[in-house]
C-alpha cells in the first residue's frame, strides 16, 4: 500500500510557487497598495476560490460546471443573512412597522422573521451553513447527474439552467431574499465594524489565509491517489470504470468540493464587499468565473489565483479608462485563451519562463524538464504538472501513465464529451 510513499507532496518548483504566492499576497500587495485597492484585491481573491474549485472539477475531473455562481451565491447569502440579522436589531430598525426584521422584509409587508431565517442568528450555524448547504446542494445535483452518467456539455447546460432558476427564484421571492437588490447594508460581525479600514485589512488577510488553506487542500488531493483517479477518469472514463472504480462517486466528490470552495469564496465576498446580490448567481458571472480559471491554466492550482487576479485587474483598469473597449478585450481574451493557449498562464510560464530560471529552482529534478523541450509541450507539461513530476511516478503504479494518455488521447484535456453515453 505504501509503495508510492516516494511521491512528494510538492515538487521543489511547487514549493517555490507557493512561497512566491504567499510573498505576493501577504507582503507585496498589502505593502504597496492603499486600503481601497487592497480591498479590491481581496474581492478578486474571493473569485479565486471559485476558480480553484473549477481547476479541480473541470481541469482534473473534466466536469465543466457553468453554475458555480449558485454556490458562490449560497455561501454569500448565508453570510449575508447572519450579518443582516445582526444589523437589524430592534434598536436600529425601530422606524419600521415591524422592528427587528431586515428592512427589505418590512418593505414587503412581512411581519415576522421566516422560520428558516431564525437559525442564522447564530454565528456557528451560519458558518456551518456556508460550508454545508452549498455542498449538500452540490451533492444532490451530483448524485442526480453523475449517477445517471450525465456529463460534458449536458452537465454544463443543466448547471447553467440551475443558475437561471436560482436567479429567478431569488428575485421573485424578494420578501425573503431581498430580491434583485440583494441583501445590502451589512455593518458588523459580532459587533466588529467590517466597514472600517482596519477591518478591510484584516479581512484581506483572513481571505488570503483561507485561500491558502483551500490551495493546500487541493494540492493534497492532487497528490493523493484520488487526484490520479480524477485525471484518469477525465482522460478515459470507461477504463477507470472497468478497473472497478465507481466513477460517479469521484465526480460527486470533486463537484461538492468545488462547490464548497465557491461557497467559502462567496462568504468572504460578503464580508469584504458588505452586500450580496443575485447578480452573482446568474449565468454571466458563472461563465466569467470559468474564464478566470482558463486564463490561469485549467490544470494549475496556482494559475487559478493568478488568472483571477489578472483578469479582474485588467477589467478594473480597462473599465476605468476605456469602458467601451472592455467587452471587446474580454471577448478576445475568451477566444485567445481557448484557441492559442488552452492551458493558460501556467503553460506559458512552464514553456518560456521556467527554462530560464536558475538551476536551484528546478533543483536536481532535471528530468522534469524533458517534456518541456518536446514539441507539443504545452500538453505534456500540463500533464506532468497534473501528475506531479514525472520521475516521481512509479510507472507501473500510476493509473494513467503520461505516455498512454498522450498516445491514446493526444489532447488530453479536450476529450470529446458527448452527453450521450453508449455503453
Amino acid at each position, binding site marked *: 500500500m505504501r509503495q508510492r510513499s516516494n511521491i512528494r507532496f510538492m515538487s521543489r518548483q511547487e514549493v517555490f510557487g507557493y512561497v512566491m504566492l504567499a510573498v505576493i499576497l501577504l507582503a507585496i500587495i498589502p505593502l504597496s497598495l492603499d486600503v481601497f485597492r487592497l480591498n479590491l484585491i481581496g474581492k478578486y481573491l474571493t473569485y479565486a476560490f471559485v476558480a480553484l474549485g473549477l481547476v479541480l472539477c473541470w481541469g482534473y475531473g473534466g466536469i465543466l460546471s457553468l453554475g458555480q455562481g449558485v454556490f458562490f451565491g449560497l455561501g454569500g447569502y448565508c453570510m449575508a443573512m447572519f450579518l443582516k440579522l445582526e444589523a437589524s436589531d430592534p434598536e436600529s430598525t425601530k422606524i419600521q412597522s415591524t422592528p427587528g426584521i431586515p428592512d427589505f422584509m418590512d418593505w414587503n409587508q412581512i411581519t415576522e422573521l421566516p422560520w428558516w431565517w431564525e437559525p442564522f442568528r447564530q454565528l456557528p450555524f451560519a458558518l456551518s451553513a456556508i460550508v454545508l448547504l452549498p455542498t449538500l446542494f452540490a451533492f444532490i445535483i451530483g448524485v442526480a447527474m453523475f449517477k445517471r452518467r450525465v456529463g460534458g456539455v449536458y452537465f454544463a447546460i443543466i448547471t447553467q439552467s440551475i443558475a437561471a432558476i436560482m436567479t429567478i427564484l431569488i428575485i421573485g421571492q424578494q420578501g425573503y431574499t431581498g430580491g434583485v437588490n440583494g441583501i445590502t447594508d451589512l455593518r458588523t460581525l459580532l459587533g466588529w465594524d467590517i466597514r472600517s479600514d482596519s477591518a478591510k485589512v484584516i479581512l484581506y488577510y483572513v481571505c488570503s489565509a483561507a485561500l491558502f488553506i483551500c490551495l493546500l487542500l487541493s494540492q493534497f488531493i492532487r497528490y493523493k491517489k484520488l487526484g490520479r483517479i480524477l485525471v484518469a477518469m477525465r482522460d478515459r472514463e470507461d477504463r477507470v470504470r472497468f478497473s472497478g472504480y465507481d466513477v460517479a462517486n469521484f465526480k460527486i466528490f470533486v463537484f461538492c468540493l468545488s462547490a464548497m470552495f465557491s461557497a467559502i469564496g462567496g462568504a468572504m465576498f460578503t464580508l469584504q464587499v458588505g452586500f450580496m446580490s443575485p447578480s452573482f448567481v446568474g449565468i454571466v458571472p458563472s461563465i466569467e468565473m470559468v474564464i478566470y480559471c482558463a486564463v490561469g491554466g485549467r490544470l494549475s492550482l496556482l494559475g487559478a489565483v493568478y488568472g483571477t487576479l489578472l483578469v479582474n485587474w485588467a477589467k478594473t483598469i480597462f473599465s476605468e479608462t476605456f469602458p467601451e473597449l472592455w467587452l*471587446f478585450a474580454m*471577448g478576445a481574451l475568451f477566444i485567445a485563451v481557448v484557441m492559442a493557449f488552452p492551458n493558460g498562464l501556467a503553460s506559458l510560464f512552464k514553456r518560456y519562463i521556467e527554462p530560464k530560471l536558475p538551476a536551484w529552482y528546478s533543483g536536481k529534478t532535471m528530468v522534469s524538464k524533458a517534456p518541456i523541450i518536446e514539441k507539443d509541450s504545452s500538453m505534456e507539461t500540463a500533464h506532468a504538472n497534473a501528475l506531479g513530476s514525472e520521475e516521481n511516478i512509479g510507472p507501473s503504479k500510476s493509473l494513467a501513465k503520461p505516455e498512454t494518455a498522450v498516445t491514446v488521447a493526444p489532447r488530453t484535456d479536450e476529450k470529446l464529451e458527448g452527453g450521450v453515453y453508449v455503453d
Partner: protein
Amino acid sequence: MFEEYSMAELTDILFMQGFAGLILFSVLVLMALGLAIIFGQMGVINMAHGEFMILGAYTTYLTSHIFETYLPALFDGYFFVAMALAFLVCFALGVLVEWGMIRFLFKRPLDTLLATWGLSLILQQSYRTVFGAREVGVTLPEWMMGSYAMTETIEVPINGIFVMVLTLFIASGVYFLMFRSLWGKQVRAVVQNRPMAGAVGIDTGKVDRYTFGIGCGIAGIAGSAFTMIGSTGPTSGQLYIVDTFLVVVFGGAQSLIGTIASAFTISQSQSTLEFFLSGSMAKVITLLIVVGILMLRPQGLFALKIRQ
C-alpha cells in the same frame, strides 16, 4: 376560480390560450432550430446564438430604413427581403466564424462553448458601438400588425400566425435539406461516423462549415421574425439563450424531432402555468420540470444512438 365566467368565455379563453401556447411553441422552435442543427451535427454549443439572432434583427432594422427612404412603395413587402438578407448576413458571418475559430476547436465542445461566449461579448459591444446602446424600433408594414377577429372575443394576432407559418416553412425546409438532399445525406453521414464519411470522399470540413453557416442563418431569420414580438438592442440576444439551450438539450442533441417535441412540451406547460400562476413562478416550475426530466433521462427526449 372559474365560477365567475360563462361557459362561452371559458371556451374562448381555452382556445386563445392554446393559441398563445402555439405561438410560444413556434417561437421556441424557430429559436432552437439553428442551434439544434449546429449542436447535433458538430457537437458545438454556440453561445453566440442569441447575438446571431440580434444580427438578423438589426439587418431587418436597416432594411426597413432603406425601404422607407428609397423604396417606400415596396415597404409592405420589405419584411421578406429583410429575412432573406438576415439569413445571408448571418450565414456569411457563421461561415467566417467556423473558418476562423470553430474548426480549430474540433472535438473540444466545452472550449467552443467558451470561445463562442467570447464571440458573443464582442458582437454585443459591436452592436453597441454601431447602433448605440439604446434599443431600436423596427417599423413593421401595416398588414403585419393587429389581429384577425374570429369571433367577438377570439382574436388571433397576425404576427403570431406569421411566426407559425414561418416556423412551419423553415422546419420543413430544414427537413428537406437534412433528409431529402444530397447535402443532408452527407451531413448525416458525418454525424454517424466522421472518419468513415471522410474516407468515402465527403469533405467533412466543408460540411461542418456550411452546417454552422446554415444554423447561424436560421438564427438570423428567427431574429428577423422576432422584431415583431420582441426588442432589438445590443443585449436582447441574452434574453433568448437559456430557453434555447433548454429546448435543444431537452429534446435530445441529434434529433430535430426531439427539438420540436421539447419545444412543444415546454411551451404548453409554460403557457398553461402562466395562466394560473404568476409569470415568475411559471418560469421556475417549467425550468424545474425540464431539469427534473433531464436528470431522469439525460440524453433528452429523443436520442440518436451513435457509436462513440
